[in-house]
């Protein structure tokens, strides 16, 4: 046996609203998620195209292991040319659609073209009977939760959804793509970074419905070995410290201690409100309000997602993550996690990246156009974004756009994308990732939280984790499971019944990055774009600026020989 076979790929042409199903190329069988998206975009998308025009290509690709019994492996990558960075972009998310697509044997959805009527809305429906494109005009403009509530009544209970909120419909560069989670089927999971929701909106695509019906779990070639791997890996994880069992929001005190919990548009690295923004407060609230830790997708053993309730015990949002508490909280001088929870829900409703939105509002505040810490004004501002006020459009288009709108000089970004919580001044190797990653400033591309690293270690440490994360984001595994390359190649080997060498998996990770860099080079990027925003090189926090020499930054893009630590390094984002 050769493992899963008969896989397909869906091509949707939004110009004439048709869908075609083709055989998935055998030579691509070990390409999934981010690597598959990069391969398709390199082949099918003109790097110089208008990101919001019909020539951009939107890819939705689950990981190689999605739909199998491998633990926490159902993530789906969304990819396209980014309207935010102007380069290639991949953002991945949990929820159920990745699992469902792969159970049906669909390795990717490739969306091309755009309808002639920019006001028309469409849906792609996928089930055991095939694929079709239908009108979704009735759902035009709906916020994500209302949309999904209505879709639940329209489709079978087994269905999951990939949706575009009003920010995406308005083609705002901070717009996200939402997916529904496994228990409540809320649109609470987001492929948030890079404005991919705007690409979805530009194609008139309001939602994708995936109903697996009675489709079963994908069967590996070597069932015995695959089953043993699942059992051993799960046991080892559950017997271990389970560092994320109270969610990423519990990272707040560590980040604050390390001066990477930015305050007031990153003029400081610590917030005086770290105690009240600490995720521990959320966990404490479970006792009186309800709420819990849960898994966003079937088969997840990490369960890092917190379900947050309000004071009346009603569901408010999930998951309230560390990044959101940082960018919409500390970075805007907001002190209350409950206010951040309200804004997280609003961003999920409108379909916005909480990192980009928080960074943009902090720029607005730093420019003196909104009071620091005024959470109520922030909520009103986020809610007005779909109304496309001038200020709302600026915020919805991200931090750089807000800098232009206000004329304010301090805009912390790399390649047009706002810096996430992890700050490149105390964490310089992470800064090297922000400069060199094809994704721009994205911690999930390669986070290195090691303030003791010496400058001669930055390039390899960045390259190493960029490779590991690229492979992880192609596998379907969640980064919070923290698999290493040896773990992933073991699963691939059992899935397809063949040996997958260390050299091969190193090559796969590098090829993904090389494809993405080639796309960006063809789009017009050069070495001079591998830089950090000037404010981060001039304004210190805790006495440190980002001062990594250009030759060290450039070295992270030159392939280095694999060292043993490459295969032992865990995915980190």
């Amino acid at each position: 046996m050769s493992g899963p076979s008969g896989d397909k790929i869906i091509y949707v042409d939004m110009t004439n609203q048709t869908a075609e199903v083709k055989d998935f190329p055998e030579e691509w069988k070990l390409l999934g998620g981010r690597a598959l998206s990069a391969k398709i975009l390199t082949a099918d998308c003109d790097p110089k195209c208008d990101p919001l025009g019909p020539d951009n290509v939107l890819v939705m690709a689950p990981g190689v292991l999605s739909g199998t019994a491998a633990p926490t492996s159902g993530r789906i990558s969304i990819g396209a040319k980014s309207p935010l960075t102007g380069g290639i972009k991949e953002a991945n998310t949990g929820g159920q659609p990745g699992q469902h697509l792969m159970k049906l044997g669909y390795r990717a959805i490739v969306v091309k073209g755009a309808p002639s009527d920019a006001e028309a809305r469409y849906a792609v429906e996928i089930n055991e009977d095939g694929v079709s494109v239908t009108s979704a005009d009735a759902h035009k403009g709906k916020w994500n939760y209302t949309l999904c509530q209505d879709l639940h009544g329209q489709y079978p209970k087994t269905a999951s959804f990939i949706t575009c909120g009003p920010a995406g419909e308005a083609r705002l560069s901070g717009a996200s793509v939402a997916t529904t989670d496994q228990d409540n089927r809320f649109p609470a999971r987001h492929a948030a970074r890079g404005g991919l929701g705007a690409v979805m909106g530009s194609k008139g695509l309001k939602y994708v419905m995936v109903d697996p019906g009675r489709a079963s779990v994908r069967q590996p070639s070597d069932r015995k070995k695959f089953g043993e791997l699942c059992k051993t890996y799960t046991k080892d994880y559950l017997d271990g410290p389970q560092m994320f069992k109270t969610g990423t929001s519990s990272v707040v005190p560590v980040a604050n201690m390390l001066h990477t919990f930015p305050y007031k548009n990153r003029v400081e690295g610590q917030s005086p409100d770290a105690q009240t923004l600490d995720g521990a407060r959320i966990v404490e609230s479970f006792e009186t309000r309800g709420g819990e830790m849960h898994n966003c997708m079937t088969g997840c053993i990490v369960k890092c997602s917190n379900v947050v309730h309000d004071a009346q015990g009603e569901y408010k949002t999930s998951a309230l993550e560390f990044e959101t508490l940082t960018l919409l909280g500390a970075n805007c001088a907001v002190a209350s996690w409950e206010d951040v929870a309200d804004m997280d829900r609003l961003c999920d409703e409108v379909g916005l990246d909480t990192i980009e939105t928080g960074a943009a509002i902090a720029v607005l505040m730093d420019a003196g156009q909104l009071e620091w810490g005024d959470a109520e004004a922030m909520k009103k501002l986020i809610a007005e974004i779909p109304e496309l006020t001038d200020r709302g459009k600026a915020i919805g288009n991200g931090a750089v756009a807000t800098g232009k709108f206000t004329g304010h000089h301090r805009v912390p970004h790399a390649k047009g994308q706002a810096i996430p919580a992890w700050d490149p001044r105390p964490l310089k190797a992470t800064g090297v990732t922000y400069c060199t990653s094809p994704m721009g400033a994205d911690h999930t591309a390669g986070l290195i939280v090691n303030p003791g690293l010496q400058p001669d270690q930055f390039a390899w440490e960045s390259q190493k984790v960029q490779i590991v994360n690229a492979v992880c984001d192609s596998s379907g595994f969640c980064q919070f499971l923290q698999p290493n390359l040896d773990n992933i190649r073991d699963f691939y080997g059992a899935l397809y019944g063949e040996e997958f060498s260390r050299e091969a998996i190193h090559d796969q990770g590098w090829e993904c990055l090389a494809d993405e860099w080639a796309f960006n080079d063809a789009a017009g990027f050069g070495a001079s774009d591998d830089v950090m925003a000037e404010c981060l090189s001039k304004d210190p926090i805790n006495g440190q600026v980002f001062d990594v020499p250009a030759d060290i930054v450039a070295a992270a893009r030159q392939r280095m020989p694999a060292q043993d630590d490459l295969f032992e390094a865990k995915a980190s984002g």
Partner: protein
Amino acid sequence: MPTVLIPPPYRGPTDGAAEIVVEGDSVLACLEAVGRKYPGFLDQVLTADGAVHRFVKLFQNGEQLDGDVLSVAVSEDDSIEILAAIAGG
């Protein structure tokens, strides 16, 4: 002598050192020995009241410690590992 394994996030004060051999017959004595050598380290592990930070987990020879972890006896060849959760989300 026991070895204290330092996680990457806490290697700022140790100038990047990942393993530090110390003298000490308890977990607390070992941690304090690292703190004496590297100012700033101990604050990352212990609160001002001397308790282990909620977000820190300690392991002895690979086994997670719980209860009164600072009083646990340490032998010559033992390793004490510190873990701290790091993730973005």
